[in-house]
C-alpha cells in the first residue's frame, strides 16, 4: 500500500506537470479507481476522472474563430476608448468651467478691491459726497419744475374744497326750492 501511495504521488506529479506518457496516465487511472484506494485520494480521483473525460471529448473549433476574436478585441478597444474620450471630454469641460468661474470671481474681486483711486477712506468719502452732491444738485435742477407743479396742485387744493362747498350749497338751494314749493302747496291746500 505504501508503494501504491508513492507511485500515485509520482504519477500525479508527472500528470499535473504534463509529462506523463499514455501508459502512465492509464496506470494512474487504474490506481486511482481501485476499490481499496485510500479516502485521501478521493478528491484527486474526481479531478483526474473529470480531466480525463474532457481530454477525450472532441472540441470543435469554429472556422471563423480568428475573425470572431479579432472583432471582439476591436469592439472592446473602441468601447474603452469611447468611454475614455467621454470621461476626458467631461473632465476638460468641467475644468474649463471651473477656470472661467475662478477668472470671473477674480475679475469681480479685483474690480472691487484693486482699482480704488484713494487709499485714505477720508479722502474717498469726501469725493463720494461731492459726487453724490453733484448728482443730487443736477437731479434737483431737473425735477424742480415738477416740484412747482406739485406745489401748484397743493395750492389749488383749498379751491377744490370751495368748489365742493359751492356744489353742496347748490344742492341745498334745490332743497330750499323744493321746501318752498311744498310750503306753498300746503298753504293752498289748507286754504281750501
Amino acid at each position: 500500500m505504501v508503494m501504491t501511495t508513492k507511485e500515485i504521488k509520482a504519477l500525479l506529479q508527472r500528470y499535473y506537470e504534463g509529462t506523463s506518457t499514455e501508459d502512465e496516465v492509464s496506470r494512474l487511472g487504474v490506481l486511482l479507481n481501485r476499490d481499496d484506494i485510500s479516502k485521501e485520494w478521493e478528491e484527486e480521483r474526481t479531478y483526474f476522472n473529470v480531466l480525463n473525460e474532457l481530454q477525450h471529448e472532441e472540441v470543435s473549433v469554429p472556422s471563423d474563430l480568428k475573425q470572431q476574436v479579432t472583432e471582439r478585441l476591436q469592439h472592446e478597444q473602441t468601447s474603452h476608448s469611447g468611454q475614455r474620450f467621454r470621461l476626458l471630454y467631461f473632465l476638460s469641460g468641467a475644468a474649463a468651467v471651473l477656470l472661467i468661474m475662478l477668472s470671473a470671481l477674480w475679475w469681480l474681486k479685483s474690480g472691487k478691491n484693486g482699482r480704488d483711486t484713494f487709499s485714505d477712506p477720508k479722502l474717498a468719502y469726501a469725493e463720494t459726497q461731492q459726487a453724490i452732491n453733484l448728482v443730487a444738485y443736477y437731479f434737483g435742477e431737473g425735477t424742480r419744475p415738477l416740484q412747482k407743479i406739485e406745489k401748484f396742485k397743493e395750492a389749488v387744493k383749498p379751491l377744490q374744497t370751495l368748489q365742493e362747498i359751492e356744489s353742496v350749497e347748490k344742492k341745498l338751494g334745490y332743497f330750499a326750492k323744493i321746501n318752498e314749493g311744498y310750503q306753498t302747496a300746503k298753504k293752498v291746500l289748507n286754504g281750501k
Partner: protein
Amino acid sequence: MKNLLTSVVILLLSVSVQGQNKSIQKIFDRNKGADGFTSIVITRHMFDLFSELETQPDDDYLNLIKNLDGINILTASEPGVNSRKFYNTVLKELHNNRYQELMTVHDTDQDVEFFTREKKGQVVELLMLIGAQKQTTLVWITGIIDMKTISKLADNLGIEGMDRLNKIDK
C-alpha cells in the same frame, strides 16, 4: 453632461449680464490716465470703510452709499481732449446700450443728461453726463440707487449745492 451644459449656459448668461455695462467700463478703461482725462474710482471695498471713520458721515449719505457697488468719475478737459467729441461719443454709447434716458437739464452753459438702468424695479445704474464748453464729466454710479434719497439730498442742497458744485468745477 447636461449639468455641464447648464453650468456653461448660466455662466454665459451671467457674463452677458455683466457685459451690459462693459461698454461704459471700456470708456473708463480706454481713457484712464490718457492726456486730458482725469478719472476717479471708488469701490464698495472703500465704502465699507466709511462706517469706521472718526467723524461719522451723514445718515442720508451712508444710507445711500451702503447699497452702492461703486462710483466712477471721468472728466475730459480741453485742450488735452476734444470735450464735445467725447460728450457725443459717450452719449451715443449710452443710447446704444439699453440705458433709459431719465432727463436732460439745459443750463446756461452746459447740458446735463441722466441715464439709468433698472433691474427688478430698482435703479442699478445711474449715469450723469455733464457737457460744458471745455469740459465733459461722466459720473457712473452702480449698485442699488435710492432715487428718493437723492431727491431728498437735492432738496437739502439748494444754494449750498451750488457752492459745492463750484468747488468741484475748480
